[in-house]
């Protein structure tokens, strides 16, 4: 593999990692702070993609579709938390898994009823559908560069939110000791709803960013959900910093595994990585629990 190809594959790995980060950041916060195992996180991703595609058809505008799809996904997520998921907090993880797995099946059939069994299309405006020359003679799709940019911006925003704001302080406190935050009289119910909304926003954003690249169809959330779980296990549950680094690690490892190794081994690379982390650092690379 020559240097140019190495560089392009590095960018591909970064782009894939950034995509995973958008999913993993929300899920790790919900899992770490609220202690809620939400397998339906992938369904919010799918809804984000479907909503953006539908809004694009009706408004004819890519930016408007993006601007409306995220708040819509947040509303769905918050409604879900306030009506169903809030009943799970004092139950164990098996109940979480059962309930949220049921939600996966429910949402997959729901989109099939609303949008039909055929995959949907989401186009790109002309400015974003081309390529740019990143090195002499090497082009890269503009849209994939945009994904990298958006992902890094979101990472920066989350860093600011968690390290520099009062809400972030509560989130950090919640991640390291939930009972104590509760005992100190913080409105934990509101905090949870807001946090779940944030997770839904990130999942919806990931889904609609994926819309123009991927087939928008029922069940599109599951493959990425599994990778997301791998990322948060590697990164350490509840840690956004861990999720960021683990996402990039998984993205790059998966990309290079796919091009350098035979297919059977390539599909195992990230799971081997996860097993290794679990063996030497069972709490993940950057655990947030004290």
């Amino acid at each position, binding site marked *: 593999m020559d240097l140019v190809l190495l560089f392009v594959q590095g960018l591909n790995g970064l782009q894939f990692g950034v995509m995973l980060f958008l999913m993993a950041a929300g899920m790790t916060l919900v899992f770490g702070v609220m202690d809620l195992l939400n397998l339906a996180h992938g369904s919010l991703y799918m809804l984000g993609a479907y909503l953006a595609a539908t809004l694009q058809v009706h408004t004819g505008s890519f930016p408007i579709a993006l601007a409306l799809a995220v708040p819509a996904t947040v509303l769905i997520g918050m409604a879900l938390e306030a009506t169903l998921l809030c009943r799970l907090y004092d139950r164990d993880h098996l109940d979480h898994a059962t309930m949220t797995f049921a939600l996966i099946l429910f949402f997959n059939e729901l989109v099939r009823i609303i949008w039909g069994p055929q*995959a949907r299309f989401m186009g790109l405006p002309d400015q974003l559908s081309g390529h740019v020359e990143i090195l002499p003679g090497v082009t890269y*799709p503009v849209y994939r560069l945009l994904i990298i940019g958006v992902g890094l911006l979101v990472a920066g925003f989350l860093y600011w939110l968690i390290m520099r704001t009062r809400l972030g302080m509560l989130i950090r406190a919640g991640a390291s000791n939930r009972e104590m935050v509760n005992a100190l009289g913080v409105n934990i119910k509101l905090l949870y709803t807001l946090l779940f909304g944030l997770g839904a926003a990130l999942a919806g954003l990931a889904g609609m960013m994926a819309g123009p*690249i*991927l*087939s*928008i169809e*029922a*069940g599109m959330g599951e493959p*990425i959900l599994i990778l997301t779980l791998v990322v948060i296990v590697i990164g350490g549950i509840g840690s956004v910093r861990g999720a960021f680094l683990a996402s990039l690690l998984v993205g790059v490892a998966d990309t290079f595994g796919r091009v350098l190794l035979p297919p059977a081994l390539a*599909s195992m690379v990230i799971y081997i990585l996860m097993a290794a982390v679990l063996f030497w650092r069972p709490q993940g690379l950057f655990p947030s629990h004290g």
Partner: protein
Amino acid sequence: MHQRMVSLAAKGLSVSLFLLVCGVASAAEKVKVGYIATMSGPGASLGTDILDGFKMGLKHCGDKLGGAPVELIVGDDQFKPEVGVQVATRMIEKDKVDIITGIVFSNVMMAIARPVTDAGIFLVSANAGPSPLAGEGCLPNLFTVSWQNDQTHEAMGKYLQDKGIKGVYLMAPNYQAGKDGLEGFKRYFKGEIRAEVYTEPNQPDYAAELAQLRSANPEAVFVFYPGGMGVNFIKQYAQAGLKDKIPLYTTAFTVNEAVLPAMGDAALGIVNTSFWSPDIDNPANSKFVADFLSTHKRLPSPFAAQGYDAAMLIDSALLATGGQTGDKDRLRAAFRKADFQSVRGSFKFNRNQFPIQDFYIREVIKDQDHQLIGRITGVAFKDHSDAYCEKCPMKW
């Protein structure tokens, strides 16, 4: 007066069209047909498409098959062979079906073929055509109305061989159907295989593989990516700017009328092979395409055409027996005649009860309504039979 004449003529025409595509027989007792396919989960769109086609066939036969009223029982195999067996057993023992049809995936077909046919029930595959059942394991009560799995890939191998392409880069998902597809392609393509890349099934993103492909810079690319994988691959191939540089060839499993709306212009101009296309010119096909479009507000795919032909085949067989299913030998003989007007044009069964049929070269174009659609540009095979029939011990 003039208007009345026209309306009378139109009625006469529609009646004769009805006579042309469907049988009319004396009243018979009810026929029970079981339809088994993957109707939920990510693989559900094919099962739905085939069922829509099958129902369109039923409708064109006046909701009868061979003149007998029909009870259609739909079952979901959930893409799991063992569930398929359960559903089939329930249909045979509880619902007492006479015929089972549908079957999208080859692994489900492999699991249910023997239990169903051993029970004396006729199985009409509207999609899956795995090689073991075409060769040594051929079954007297199994009729496959679609194709043998390899045939469509063989057609593209033949086309690129005839075109004089020297080297091809191959890609497919790493599972049985992917490997079979590329094997079928290589059976007729004798040039250099630049690379044979297998990707993880249901892999959403192909950026890494596409970067490798670009640097290999082959003369042509052939891929097999069905369903959502195909949508992802075709879009990303165009977005990577490869479409104008390295010609991409595939089959109607990847590029067909069911997924073209989701691919958009990324699919425009892609050459693929198929046993059927909406533009095949015969009265049965014109009627099928027009009615499907007006009923479902979307173009029929080759899968819907398979479902339609399954209904027509069953209709023709039951017509010959007067709607009776009791005498198995008589019904089998009627099935073997395949005395129906297939939407694909010429159709007959080989000795292994898989089709002998033509395969076309198609190109994706935009029609006058700006819809993406396949258009035939040539013929890859005339009366093509599959590679496994010789091994089938069945005698007619």
